[in-house]
Every structure is written in structure tokens, then in C-alpha cells.
């Protein structure tokens, strides 16, 4: 199950509390709790790597995305 943020309120308490662990099963490889096909991606604000400004995936609305959650190690 995914908890999806409705970001119409400026309350970050709401914004952040919805990105909660939930169970889910990846297609093909390992578990990916919190993500589920057919559900919106959590509406989470995060700093950008290039300039530190806060952004979210909503900034890319209207585009098809391939999102990689990763680390360089």
C-alpha cells in the first residue's frame, strides 16, 4: 500500500508524513516498499544536487519519467 501525499496544503507535516514505508513487491527484483504500480509517486520535496534548491517530481509534470533511486557506491 502506498500513502500518497495530497500537496494542496502547504503543511510539510502532511507532506512528509505520507512518504511512509508500505509493503510492495517489485516486478522482477527485490522488494520496493512504498511504491506500487498505478499509485502516484509520493509527493516529496527534496533538495536538488546542483544548487540545493528544493524540488519534487511535480516539477516534471507533463513528462514521462524514468526515475532512478540510487547511490554511487
Amino acid at each position, binding site marked *: 500500500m502506498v500513502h500518497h501525499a495530497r500537496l494542496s496544503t502547504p503543511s510539510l*507535516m502532511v507532506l512528509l508524513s505520507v512518504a511512509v514505508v508500505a509493503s510492495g513487491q517489485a516486478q522482477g527484483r527485490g522488494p520496493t516498499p512504498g511504491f506500487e504500480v498505478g499509485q502516484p509517486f509520493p509527493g516529496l520535496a527534496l533538495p536538488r544536487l546542483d544548487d540545493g534548491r528544493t524540488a519534487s517530481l511535480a516539477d516534471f509534470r507533463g513528462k514521462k519519467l524514468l526515475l532512478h533511486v540510487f547511490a554511487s557506491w
Partner: protein
Amino acid sequence: MPGWHDATKDLQASGDLQMVGIIQEQHPDRARLFMQWKEMGWPILVDAYNLLEVPVVPITLAIDEHGVIRQINPRRGDVDRLQETFLSQTFDPPPGGADDLPRAPNLDALRPPAGSGSAGAWMAYGDALAVWGGPDRRDDAIAAYESAVRPNAENALGHFRLGVAHRMRYDSDARRDGDFTKAVEHWMMALDIDPNQYIFRRRIQQYGPRLDKPYPFYDWVVTARAEIEARGEAPSPLVVEPRGAEFARPAEAFVASEKPEDEPDPRGRVLRDEGQFITIETTTVPPAVEPGATARFHIVFRPVEENESHWNNEAEDLAFWIDPPAGWEVEHRYLTVSIPPEPVSRETRVLEVEVQAPERTRARRVNIPAYALYYVCEDVNGVCMYRRQDVELQIAVKRQ
């Protein structure tokens, strides 16, 4: 990930596909260097605190134009299938419409009243400070996460984020004594609560002993810099250079040096520095081990600013001697830090060494005696001296 990038270059160029990354890493600037190396110029968001609560990386998601997840971990590099099942499809918007853009909240209005507030409220406040507060509010984020874990000791994410914040402060000019040790302790508490969380586990392994390493974490940095420079570019700078454990390769067995090593001050005659000139900070990763297991000591030496202390490099290397009790093994009992070429310097010096606990021990906490010998000067009175500083390398033994 570079495979997806290479396979979708045309789609990215035509605007049919937007690549985006979210970094799950303590030092995101290292990911910037990685992206430069692989020539991946797409937008990256930083999630060092793991607000997404992912248990593992990498994860790839195909997300439609409305922000809805359509595929999780599509077959790696299979662009034809992605085209057929995702890019060529038209998707309906989710019921209720699309999300609004997140806006910065009034951080102080989110703060629960002192001495009260639920663990959830303190977590939300800490998360808000982590995202919107920046380095200037890091102390407040640490205090908020401390308030979040106090009433709920099983708050794994709270402990993890507290560890992240402590390590961030440790890597900044605002560092406080014990920040690195607290980071490791909170990461360990988080992992003890949730042993299946690999993001927690990797933070510890990044600094931990070779026997616990799945791979070298940052060995790619050397190659990346060389190849970037060969292209005529300047490598993106790193705030904190990876070192020691972060480069170390995994090992299958603990090996203690068999080379005879002579103790440099066996009778303890060298005059002591009680920390007036050089501070020594030690961190053990992990802080507690099972009998027979290994840990890594991080030993950090810093000249004291108040005394305008600095290293005198016109003599010998900094020396470090470890005298483990019976049954305990260290890789080397005698270690040195090479002096730089300039006659004086004020750099932080670091040693790392691994230790193995005995297979059988009744001890629950062991303080392994050690000492450093170094040449140091202070500019207040203009005195240079050779000094010894005694330290204890602390490690706990878990009950089996």
C-alpha cells in the same frame, strides 16, 4: 543506471523521456562526480535522510506524465519494451487530479511544544528541517530527531536520520565532539531494529571492517577523476575525500601483521599531551561486535586551534602504538601517518585499523590502550615539542 542512460539518449534528446535521479547517499557531492564521469546530465534530487524510506537501491520507476508509477524496475536497458509498454501509451490522470508543487512551510510553526509532542510530530519537524532548513538548522534537526526517538526507542528511521544528521555535522565546520560516534551508534540502533534495511546497513559498512564489506564503496573515484581529466574537464570537487574504509576491499579473513613491531615508548618516558595541543577522537565501527568478529577504529588527530597548534614536520612521522589485551588482535600494533613536505601544517590526520575480538571472552566492554607520538608546536608561546598522548580504543562485546 548508466546502461539506461546510454540506451535512452535519443529519447532524452527528443524530449520523449526525462531521466531523473534521487540519491540515497551520505555525501551527495560524490554522486555529482559520478554523474560527471558517466556524462549523465540529468536532474538529481538528494535524499540522504531516506525520506522515501526505500530499503534498497537501485530502484527504477517509470512514471507517467501525471506522476503515477506505471512500472517498477523495468527490464534493464530494454528500450523497445519501455517504448511499447510505457512511452507509446496514453495514461489517464489519477482521480482527484495532480499534486500541487510542494511549498516551504513555516518551520517554526511546525515545532511541537518543548517537552511534549508525539514522536510523529517531532519526526515531521525533523524531516521538515532536514529538507527545508539546510545546514543552518541542522542542530535543530538533530534535537527534533532526538525528541522523536526518546518516546519511541523502536523508531528505526528516527535513529537512522539522527545518524545522518550527526555525520553531516561531523563533516562540516560546525562539528562537535562525538558526532561521528553518535552517527554510527544511531545507525546501529536503526539496523538492530530493522535488520532488512540495506540503506541503514550500507551506512555502517561504508566505514566498517573489511570482513563486513560487500564491495569497495568509492574505489571508482580514482578512475573517474583520471577519465574526467583526460577529457579536458576539471573533476567536480568533493567536500569530504573518501578514505580508508571507503576504499577498502572486502576480505574473507582477518589477518594480523606477523612482522615484529617494536614499541616506540615502552617505559612511558615521553612527556604527555593531555589534549592541550592535539585532540584525538576515536570512533569504532561497529561499536559492538560478537565474539570473533571484527571492527574498524577511526582515529582522528586535530591540532587545537585555541593554542594555534600545528604539526612540526621537520622530524619523524606521527606514530601510533596499540597494545591489545590477550586474545584481541589488531592488524598492526604500530602505525604511522606520513608527514607532508611543508615544514609546518595544521591538517587533520587520520588512522584506521581493524581489530578482532576473541572467540571466547567474558568481557562486555574493552578499552584497548594505545598512544600517539608526534611533533607539535604552539604559536602562543612559540614552543615546539615531542609529545605522547594516551588514548583508549573502546569496543563492546555482544552477548551471544
